[in-house]
């Protein structure tokens, strides 16, 4: 029983050591600004199309389903309110993070994994560079900056998608839709909607780096690391979503 637990406990310990090292490097020289910008482009700009597509359709589907339910009560005019709250608080951050994890946790794991199996990581260490400082910290910083930005984009595009569906299916006037969207949001929703992607960004980047750095077994190992990174990052995002949501609920209850 204890032997069976050794492996997972060791993995968690290794992940914590890697995360601690990556966070500590934020305050230690040298800083690789070029790498941060390059990763911001890869992770951020590279994910814009998928984030826009998923954002638009998730908003549209939500308006479609919500509108149908609200129609029974003659409240289709409040579609924007539901779309807005659900998108900003929950669906926007989670969907964006899962999509970015699918694209970038896998990308990070395969890139670093390939470097690991071809001894490029060892070469880096032999040539005076800390791989955590050079590879992990820039990816972590870039994801922490870009994921909240992508979430804002996803939320906005989702609202547009919801607005179009509300107009086409339920004849909700645009002005009314956007008015309810705007009025439904409180500062705490915006806070929650931005805190979540910031926290998820660490799961997306660090899980990718962790699986990449522990890759063994050649190209087959790279494939395995890639899959594990996406699955673990996605599961972790949902688990974090529950706990962060619970903390915000607790804070809002304290304020009442």
């Amino acid at each position: 029983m204890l032997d069976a637990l050794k492996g997972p406990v060791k993995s968690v310990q290794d992940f914590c050591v890697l995360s601690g090292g990556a966070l500590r490097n934020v305050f230690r020289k040298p800083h690789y600004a070029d790498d941060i910008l390059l990763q911001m482009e890869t992770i951020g700009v590279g994910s814009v199309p998928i984030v826009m597509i998923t954002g638009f359709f998730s908003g549209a589907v939500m308006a479609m389903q919500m509108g149908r339910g609200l129609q029974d009560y003659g409240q289709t005019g409040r579609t924007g309110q539901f779309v807005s709250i659900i998108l900003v608080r929950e669906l926007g951050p989670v969907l964006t993070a899962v999509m970015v994890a699918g694209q970038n946790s896998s990308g990070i794991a395969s890139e670093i994994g390939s470097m690991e199996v071809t001894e490029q990581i060892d070469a880096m260490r032999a040539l005076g560079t800390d791989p955590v400082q050079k590879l992990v910290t820039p990816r972590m910083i870039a994801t922490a900056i870009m994921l909240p930005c992508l979430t804002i984009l996803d939320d906005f595009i989702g609202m547009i998608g919801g607005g179009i569906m509300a107009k086409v299916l339920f004849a909700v006037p645009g002005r009314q839709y956007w008015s309810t969207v705007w009025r439904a949001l409180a500062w705490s929703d915006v806070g929650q909607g931005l805190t979540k992607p910031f926290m998820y960004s660490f799961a997306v980047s660090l899980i990718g780096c962790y699986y990449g750095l522990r890759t063994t077994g050649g190209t087959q190992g790279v494939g395995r690391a890639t899959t594990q990174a996406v699955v673990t990052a996605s599961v972790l995002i949902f688990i974090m979503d529950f706990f962060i949501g619970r903390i915000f609920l607790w804070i809002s209850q304290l304020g009442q």
Partner: protein
Amino acid sequence: MAEKIQPTGVADTSDAASLLRFENVRVTFDGDDEKPALNGVSFNVRRGETRILLGAAGSGKTVLLKTAMGLECATGGRVFLFDEDVTHKSERELFDIRAKVGMLFQESALFDSMTVAQNVAYPLLNQKAVSMPRDKMEPAVRSSLRFVELEGQMGKYPSELSGGMRRRVAIARAVVTNPPLLLYDSPTAGLDPITAHTIMALIVKERDKDNTTALVVTHRYQDGNLVANFRYNPNSGHLDPVGPDGTKTIFMVMKEGKLVFEGSQTELEANRDPYVMKFVKQPQSEAA
């Protein structure tokens, strides 16, 4: 088990400074004490020596090199680099010591997102102990690539080069900072005989041009034979044969994590251990 003997018949280097010393080093992975990758390995590489490390695949040759660089941690014994105990040093503490060592990795380990010139410039830019002014970097890179006869390939990416060319670029990267100690991990693995000879000739040239100390891991006896019996002639640009044991070359043989032989080429060829004998072939004229 093969007899472990002290080197004799090689140039006396006992007074020379020790550059790399292993003292009863043991390395295990994932706590597997039953099958250590290195088991009680001890040897001492002195300045000016060239060590040829022979052994079958999986005998621990690469682990030995990585342990020497502090890329793998010894679980027992002690490792000294330039008389400094590096066994338990942190990664950051090791950077300055590693700057004195050049390493050629088995599959070259060139950074595939960088050009040839960027790869060779990497240690100059990243090793704090080197501290070379930016304006002197380009000539240094150019000179290092000229040494391996690849000056014209500076702008190419590693994926555009042949296996032999990649190995030569990796040698250029290893020697660009003029380190006093060089570690070569299977420099001829997977190469055709002609390219393998070119690579080994470069290693001999580097040794004789800069008087560097080297540890060469290989499974090909002819690589060691070339290093032990030929010298680079700067006038002709070719390798000239020297007398028996005319170079400070010591052979070592590894078997299942243990060092089972250490001695001169003459002693290696006289050894009757079946495992050691498998690596020994009669030397033939190698120099072109």
